[in-house]
């Protein structure tokens, strides 16, 4: 398949492995932000094949993992209402709240539907004018343009039986939070390619300067990841804190201006809680005042719902790259993908789930 096969070329991968080994003179700790990249790295055994001196730690870039338990509880309450058709990306349905998940709400008679695009949720609203249709608008900067467009379009057409439960987060503030932590070990970052496709990589330049870390946007295929790691190691070895793009076919410095325009029209920057981490200032997006009537939290009066995390779970440290999943005492014991205790075991993109699935360490 075009744009896939050439980036899985074993000979090319080997060349990149060799080159990484050749230029590495000391121990470096590099974080890949994106859960999709974590998954690809572990599935392809990239972390195992790198020299021992290159340590990859896994970042918070998994939307399912960082959606706070309160948001899940709110979704469950809304989805249980008789007049509601609750719509969501498929990955959110298995995420357990304190006592159940969206699948269980569906088995109990709730109308919960998986959609591929928020525009499909809007279509369900058009088709069911007597129902309230709610979309669970979660994710990073990659889903923000889609979620923003659904709200924008609903407002433009005057579709009133549509609303969104928003838990929308952004990468750069999370990087700052990680780098500011006294326990931080991260020396360089692989930036998430598709987040950068939307936002561009210019917004990482101040982070790189301020914290003196190299940041390299890259993709998801083995060759992309290895080229990204190679560039990061090169910059680390040279003592340079630059942002260098290794995903040129998809990422530009400026990003996608049309997407950014709608995001800023529909959303504003707000403080957001991250599951396992807590509130990160100015790290999320919330609906602007003009679109407040599309806010499901207010429409269904669920703002006050709180939730309690399992005290065993260390996913906050896992998400910040401080601990590897197997350092958690519950890993593969009390906590498995079938009975996840924490966010990072829930999603297939979560670091705990990836370690479990591929039998690491």
């Amino acid at each position, binding site marked *: *398949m*075009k*744009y*896939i096969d050439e980036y*899985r070329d*074993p*000979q*090319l*991968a*080997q*060349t990149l492995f*060799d*080159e990484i080994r*050749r230029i590495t003179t000391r121990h470096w700790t590099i974080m890949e932000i*994106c*859960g*999709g990249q974590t998954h*690809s790295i572990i*599935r*392809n*055994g990239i972390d195992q094949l790198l020299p021992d001196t290159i340590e990859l730690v896994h970042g918070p*870039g*998994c*939307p*399912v993992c960082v959606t706070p338990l309160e948001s899940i509880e709110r979704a469950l309450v809304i989805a249980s209402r008789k007049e509601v058709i609750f719509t969501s*990306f498929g*990955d959110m349905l298995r995420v357990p709240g304190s006592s159940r998940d969206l699948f269980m709400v569906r088995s109990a008679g709730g109308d919960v539907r998986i959609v*591929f*695009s*928020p*525009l*499909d949720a809007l279509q369900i609203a058009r088709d069911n004018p007597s129902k309230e249709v709610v979309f669970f608008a*979660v*994710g*990073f900067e*990659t*889903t923000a*343009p*889609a979620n923003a*467009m659904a709200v924008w*379009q609903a407002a*433009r057409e005057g579709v009133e039986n549509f609303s969104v439960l928003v838990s929308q987060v952004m990468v750069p503030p999370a990087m700052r939070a990680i780098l500011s932590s006294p326990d931080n070990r991260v020396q360089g970052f692989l930036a*998430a390619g*598709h987040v950068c*496709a*939307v936002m561009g990589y210019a917004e990482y330049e101040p982070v790189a300067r301020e914290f003196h870390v190299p940041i390299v946007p890259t993709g*998801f295929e*083995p*060759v992309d990841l290895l*080229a990204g790691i190679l560039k990061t190691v090169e910059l680390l070895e040279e003592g340079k804190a630059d942002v260098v793009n*290794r995903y*040129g*076919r*998809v*990422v530009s410095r400026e990003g*996608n201006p*049309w*997407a950014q325009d*709608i995001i800023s029209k529909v959303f504003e920057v707000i403080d957001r809680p991250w599951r396992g981490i807590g509130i990160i200032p100015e790290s999320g997006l919330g609906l602007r005042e003009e679109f407040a009537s599309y806010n499901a939290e207010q429409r269904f009066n669920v703002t006050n719902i709180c939730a309690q995390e399992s005290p065993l779970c260390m996913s906050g440290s896992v998400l910040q790259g401080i601990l590897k999943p197997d350092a958690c005492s519950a890993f593969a014991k009390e906590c498995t993908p079938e009975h996840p205790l924490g966010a990072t075991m829930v999603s297939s*993109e979560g670091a705990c789930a990836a370690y479990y699935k591929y039998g690491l360490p």
Partner: protein
Amino acid sequence: MCLAIPGKLLELTTENGLKMGIIDVNGSKTRACLEYVPDIHVGQYTIVHAGFALKIIDEEEAGESLKLWQELIESGAFEPDEEPPALESL
């Protein structure tokens, strides 16, 4: 949720006033909104996320980086000292 694989635009359409398209992603056809790639034309490749095309894939850039890497291999600068790694997803 953040994974997106490249697809090829087969057909342009309009729905509810939005620019839409049919995209071939690895042999299966999906609908995507094209409002964020207004300049796209049929036959181009794009990255689709949550039903939205986010970027037209830059053919020239893709060709450039592959050429560079190919040169790296051909220069023989790095004699592979072991078998190529088993990349499971190949």
